[in-house]
């Protein structure tokens, strides 16, 4: 029995490794804000959402549509979905209530613990069956339809009766019958437990009447003997205890899978609620195959910025179908980084099956997303910093794949403009010739402008605008790269004006 709400044909692996660059992705795209909004205080949902978003990069359009459908069902029936989530969580609680303590190192302890858990699990399973009976008709997605059908088919009344039968037998009221052979050093091995015959009484006598039997009774005060006897009994029931405990684990891991996979959708519901409070729009994105180059959106905004500022923020438009290179230049604080973040966030959210923060959005899926951001804001012109940036770029190239997408933010500016531009130009040229998708925020004019001059058909140039009064609109427009960013001018001006102040900073 499987939940299969994340994939059509397999479980969602909540322990799967995060991509090697998860730290960079989380930091550069401010993803923890997103996860926190999804979690709404629930640590478990935070973890699951984090894993679903960061590992979604390998999902293809089919996987994405499957989840979008499940998510649409969740949005139509939030109360029922939250109820299933609660039942799964309670089923799992049965394990915590029965602590796997000291006694449970022994088969008899394991056995009685498993019986307790099983009784609670059976209760939770009955509740799930009832929900399936009552509400299945309200769900349309393949994921939920399959789940409810499975519950109804597998959890019949007969089946519940069989389980009750085992629970009675396992009390061993007639004693324990087992067999063994001689192993190394003539110690007993291969202990196997046998189910006593159906006859209510006399089976021992019946059996013993036929062959030679030797009997030994532990003396009343022989404590070591009593221990040894119960140890021997344990050896007999060991396999059965194991089988039952494993069965419990299987049932619990079904609850766990159900809870984990629902946690992601509950996270989506939570985020949905937050954004609709802010009046910020969301839409289901339209993914296309990895081999295509599509990127078109309207009203795309930085979801984490909206969540942080607790208000609707400015959205941007991008028409970059059949483009592989987007170069973004222009004013500092003009919304370049915000835009780059929103591109990355939307890509990951789309891959994970979520809605995205835009009025409309369509893009090809990629098979890897890399961010290459300048790590600190200060512009020390040291080769050590450039070395570090190149080293990170090297790591990226080591992991690159044919349909990767790369987001650069002010990369390779840790040297003078000419050298930085040359390094960036060579890297970006090689990348786009390989048809990799590149978005590059830069103030390296030489670099940006040389691409513009070449007028390649597969590139698009965006510029952050600043009005003449210095106010920023946070809106990007298509346009030729400008000679300079304003911040640098300002810095130079200040440095010229007050050279002594700069020297006299330290006490």
């Amino acid at each position: 029995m499987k939940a299969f709400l994340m994939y059509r044909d397999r479980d969602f692996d909540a322990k799967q490794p995060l991509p090697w660059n998860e730290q960079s992705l989380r930091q550069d795209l401010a993803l923890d804000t997103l996860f926190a909004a999804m979690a709404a205080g629930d640590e478990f949902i935070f973890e699951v959402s984090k894993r679903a978003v960061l590992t979604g990069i390998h999902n293809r359009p089919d996987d994405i549509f499957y989840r979008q459908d499940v998510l649409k069902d969740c949005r139509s029936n939030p109360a029922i979905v939250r109820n299933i989530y609660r039942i799964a969580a309670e089923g799992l609680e049965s394990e915590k209530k029965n602590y796997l303590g000291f006694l449970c190192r022994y088969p008899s302890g394991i056995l009685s613990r498993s019986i307790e858990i099983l009784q609670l699990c059976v209760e939770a399973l009955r509740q799930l069956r009832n929900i399936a009976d009552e509400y299945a008709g309200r769900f349309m997605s393949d994921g939920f339809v399959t789940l409810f059908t499975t519950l109804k088919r597998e959890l019949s009344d007969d089946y519940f009766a069989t389980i009750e039968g085992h629970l009675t037998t396992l009390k061993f009221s007639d004693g324990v019958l087992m067999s063994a052979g001689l192993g190394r050093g003539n110690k007993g091995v291969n202990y196997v437990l046998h189910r006593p015959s159906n006859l209510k009484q006399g089976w021992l006598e019946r059996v013993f009447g036929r062959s030679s039997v030797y009997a030994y009774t532990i003396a009343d005060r022989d404590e070591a003997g009593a221990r040894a006897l119960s140890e021997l009994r344990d050896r007999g029931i060991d396999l059965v205890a194991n089988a039952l405990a494993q069965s419990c684990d299987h049932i619990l891991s079904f609850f766990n899978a159900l809870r984990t996979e629902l946690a992601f959708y509950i996270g989506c519901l939570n985020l949905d609620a937050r954004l609709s409070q802010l009046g910020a729009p969301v839409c289901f994105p339209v993914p296309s195959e990895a081999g295509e180059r599509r990127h078109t959106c309207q009203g795309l905004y930085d979801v984490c910025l909206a969540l942080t500022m607790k208000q609707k923020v400015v959205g941007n438009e991008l028409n970059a179908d059949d483009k592989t290179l987007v170069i973004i230049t222009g004013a500092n604080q003009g919304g370049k980084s915000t835009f780059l973040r929103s591109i990355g966030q939307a890509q990951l959210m789309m891959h994970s099956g979520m809605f995205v923060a835009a009025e409309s959005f369509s893009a090809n899926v990629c098979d890897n997303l890399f961010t290459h951001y300048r790590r600190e804001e200060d512009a020390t012109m040291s080769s050590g910093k450039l070395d570090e940036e190149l080293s990170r770029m090297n790591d990226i190239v080591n992991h690159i794949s044919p349909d990767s997408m790369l987001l650069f933010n002010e990369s390779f500016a840790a040297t003078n403009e000419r050298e930085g531009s040359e390094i960036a130009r060579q890297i970006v040229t090689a990348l786009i010739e390989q048809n990799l998708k590149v978005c590059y925020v830069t103030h390296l004019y030489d670099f940006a402008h040389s691409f513009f001059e070449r007028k390649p058909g597969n590139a698009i140039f965006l510029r952050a605008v600043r009005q003449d009064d210095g106010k920023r609109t946070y809106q990007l427009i298509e346009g030729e790269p400008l000679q300079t960013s304003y911040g640098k001018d300002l810095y130079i001006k200040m440095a010229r004006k007050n050279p002594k102040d700069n020297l006299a900073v330290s006490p």
Partner: protein
Amino acid sequence: MDNQQKNAGHLSKAFHSILSGHPGIAVETEAMPPYFVDLNLDQIIDSITEDKKEYDLKPFFYTPLTDRDSIIYRQEIFRDLEAIDLLDRLEAFAWNMRTMRDCLARADKLYYPGQKEAWFLEAVITYCHAVSDLARDLDTARLNSRGLLAFRDYLKAYGWSDRFTTLFAEAKQIAAGLAAIRYSIIIKGSTIKVRPYESEPDYSADIGQTFEKFRQGQVKDYASKLPDYAEMNHVEAKVLEFVAMLNPDIFTRLKDFCLKSREFRDETVVVFDREIQFYIVCLDHMEKFSGSGLPFCYPGLSNPGKDIFCHDGFDLALAGKLLDKKAAVVCNDFYLDGKERIIVVSGPNQGGKTTFARTFGQLHYLARLGCPVPGRDARLFVSDRLFTHFERQENIGNLSGKLQDDLVRITEILDQATPDSIIILNEIFTSTALSDAIFLSRTVMEKIHGLDALCVCVTFIDELSVFSEKTVSMVSTVVPENPAARTFKIIRKPSDGLSYALSLSEKYRLTYKSLKERLNHESVSHVPRS
């Protein structure tokens, strides 16, 4: 045993030891030679013997041979073991012998006779398997070495002896009888009953079946956290007693067998078991490296001449560490022809000079053990003694004291060295002024020159590299385009000082040209992670 040795005698020379063809040649010493630490031989031997500590093999490795014939005796055995893939079989033999020792130790410690006897029986059977399997494997192997041929004859004769065949047959019969027993136990309250087994189905399978539909992949194994002592408690002993009463014949035979078979082991086989490990650990160790493309060879021996060479030699201790880190190992060549005796190594720091000196020393030492040496092809000199002088870190605080130490140690070396010795000097006299260092170094070089001994001298003093017609200059090198990068190649050329500049982008292979190559390559080789 006398009888068996006679039988073996007319096929080939009588077997003496797998480590030496002649009685009277020492094959083990307790003390580690003084130069071991300098050459990192201690690390190598630790690494070689690490997994086989129980055999106490280090004394073998502390004992270099001094005559050609003994070295060749071992090289023959190594070649045989490599050529005919006998290693697995010898490992199996060793495993059996080890298991046998464990069983005997168990039998010794345990209390209940039914148990002691069972462990003793297992020891005997394991030993018999060890001997008969090995005899069979050797018999079909195409052997060429004097050592293994002699041992094969010995083992064959022993394996056919009445003493051995009777022992084996009887042990097997008894074991089969015990294994066939199965019995049932009923526990109710404080009473336990034992009776013969009557087939009934396994209940755990029934449980598993019921919950099969929930199966979700791997789950924890809850089975058998029960203490599994070799010992029995008195309840188990009672059960065994009942089982013996249910099966009296076989238990009586077991008891008689144990009484009459106490001294079942053959001394020559026992000694062979330890000594053959010398070869096994060497080959196992070598395997780790040759798997990564690092070559080993059996060196030719140059004596009485001093023309030596090695192609693609490498530092075995360093290579071990690099392999663990999956880093590349750099190999180096050297040779000495005609009058050449002294290699003077200079060049940039961290460029592999010390490694080169160690490699030279390791190769010559390992050759004297009769071992394969790390290199593709080599001819090496069988020295009478080996001396090393490496910088000692601990005295760095006290410079004048250190210079004195250096001088004392160098003088001792020069007093003891003979024309047949090998001397390895690494950065001597670094603790004194340059002019002093030059003067003292020249004095030492003159002495070595006079001795006509083989020597490697690592130094920052360029002048030494053109000291005389006996000296050869070798230099650590850098990558021409990026002088910050070391190649760790040491090549024959005049000493010079190199300046260097840096190209970061190329260092990370991120220039247009390099990146294109990488992208083409990595896109093609990319395996999609589903």
